[in-house]
């Protein structure tokens, strides 16, 4: 699972996760640390403050693998994560950014 090649990674289905989080230093480390310490790669990350800046929204695109349900449950337990929503890979948030990554 940890040694999949880059082409295999591309072939795997992706899931887009949308997280509402408190906006302070360290929240991002809590979220991405949950993935990195399981050797679970995060393929894409976006984060911006929402409204008055008390909260932020984090968009993640990750591989859909057998551990994803457990990952979502673990993220939901984080104190600074207010909500987690799952979307399919077809969600446009990352597609619209593609022109910045050419």
């Amino acid at each position, binding site marked *: 699972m940890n040694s999949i090649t880059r082409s295999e990674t591309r072939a795997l289905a992706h899931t887009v996760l949308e997280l509402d989080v408190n906006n302070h*230093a*360290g929240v991002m*480390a*809590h979220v991405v*640390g949950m993935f990195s*310490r399981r050797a679970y790669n995060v393929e894409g990350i976006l984060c911006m403050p929402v409204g008055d800046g008390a909260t932020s929204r984090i968009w993640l695109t990750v591989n859909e693998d057998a551990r994803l*349900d*457990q990952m979502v*449950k*673990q993220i*939901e*337990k*984080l*104190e*600074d994560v207010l909500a987690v929503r799952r979307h399919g890979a077809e969600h446009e948030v990352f597609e619209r950014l593609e022109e910045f990554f050419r």
Partner: protein
Amino acid sequence: MTSPQTETLSGAQIVVRLLERQGVRRLAGIPGGPILPFYDALSQSTLIEHVLARHEQGAGFMAQGMARVTGEVAVCVSSSGPGATNLLTAIADAKLDSIPLVAITGQVSSALIGTDAFQEVDTYGLTIPITKHNFLVGSTVELLDVIPRAFRLAASGRPGPVVVDIPKDVLLQRIEISIWPAPGVADSAPAPDAELVATAAAMINAAERPILYLGGGVVHSGASSLAVELAEKASLPSVMTLMALGAMPVDHALSLGMLGMHGARCTNLAMDECDLLIAVGARFDDRATGKVAAFCPQAKIIHIDIDPSELDKIKTAHVGIRGDVKAVLDVLVAQVSARLRQTWLSRVAELKADHPLRMPGIEDPRSHYGLIRAVADCLDDEATIATDVGQHQMWVAQAYPLRRPRQWLTSGGLGTMGFGLPAAIGAALAEPQRTVVCFSGDGSILMNIQEFATAAEEEANVKVVLMNNYSLGLVFQQQTMFYGERIFASKFKGVPDFIKVAEGFGWQTLDLDQADDPVAALGKALASRGPMLIHASIDRREQVLPMVAPGAANKDMIGG
């Protein structure tokens, strides 16, 4: 203008006041640079007693000992840098065993953070993966929110450790305070899904060969007597994880004792035959399940846990119920039918008769099992039993007649050598009326032996039973069994004279090797007051048996 109730207090004074308001009456720690303002304020407290550990890891485990025997959130304190890194093992241990802890660490002043200042370390970053939550406090006024929240988080749901890292300037800054926040208390758990509980009750009623599988969550939630009630009403043979020992008296007619790697053969064989497994506050740890695919292969599974991420993590449950196990069991007990289950109980009795836990030498106090039994014979159920980690821990788990929840303190998930002595000291200080026995080994005891000084200073009523086999016994055993008897780095060539070491720390001592009447000497030593080392040599070749080889199925046990 300040109103009459307004006080001007430093951050340090605020933390002390908040701890007092929280009901904290004892904490363990070691002072140093950035945490000194807190210590200065603590010196003025008439309510909180400070236990001066000799290593921060010791302070962390003392707090764990306090939390494990009382069920209340306990507090440990360290300075920045090495003080904080020394705490990490005790914090990680608390995370894996779900122990409510608040660790307060000093940090360099805000202006110095990120400059590689003297004794600066990223405590926040280091503790993210080993805490339920952590804080780096940004301002003095934030303390009023963070400290009660830390206690609430540590105690709520599945308990666990919370770190509060406080920069020195935040401790020194003075602010005006007129209103104090309410102390942080555990949130109430969401009510269990009534329909799922009804389904679970129907499954128990319909099962022919059910087994009740109790985990540490039963102890944490105070549900032990309800679990016994459920077992008795529905005639459920019951197994316990290492963490749950004492939840049901091990000599209860329905008890099959500890399951898993070092459980009795009858226990694992009964699980192999069960058609329904009712897991309560247990997490299907690999030492309990063995090869997961072969664990209770015929069984449907009911899994009850307060932590939703435990449901379906290792084994997919047929019914997964999120809830406080006490609340769930309360409803479940009412809904299950009283059954006698004569066929299943007689089958279990047959397995017990044919494949009991064999404890050779149990009558001989100079053998490992016999020593544990002799200690138990000198004590009643009011005694608290702690262990370190290794062979002695498994022997005690197998042989000690634990009968009371919170009687048993052991490092289950992390398996930390060095846990026993400081945890026992914390337990003895929290409940001074009890005798606290810490079984240890010559490997483990050296990992926190400096706390002999703390025990002597506090006159803690701790009896260390040191089972000395002059080796790292469990490593020696694994090398013997699985590494072609290539014994390497597990035999000690130099072994200290533990009696002299203990005497040097001001402890009373008993060397059972030299005692003409070991049982009488043991009785006298355990009845004494204050710290006492009881030393006994153990044959290095003795093994913990039976044993499931790592990765093997539980029904394929070696030995015993």
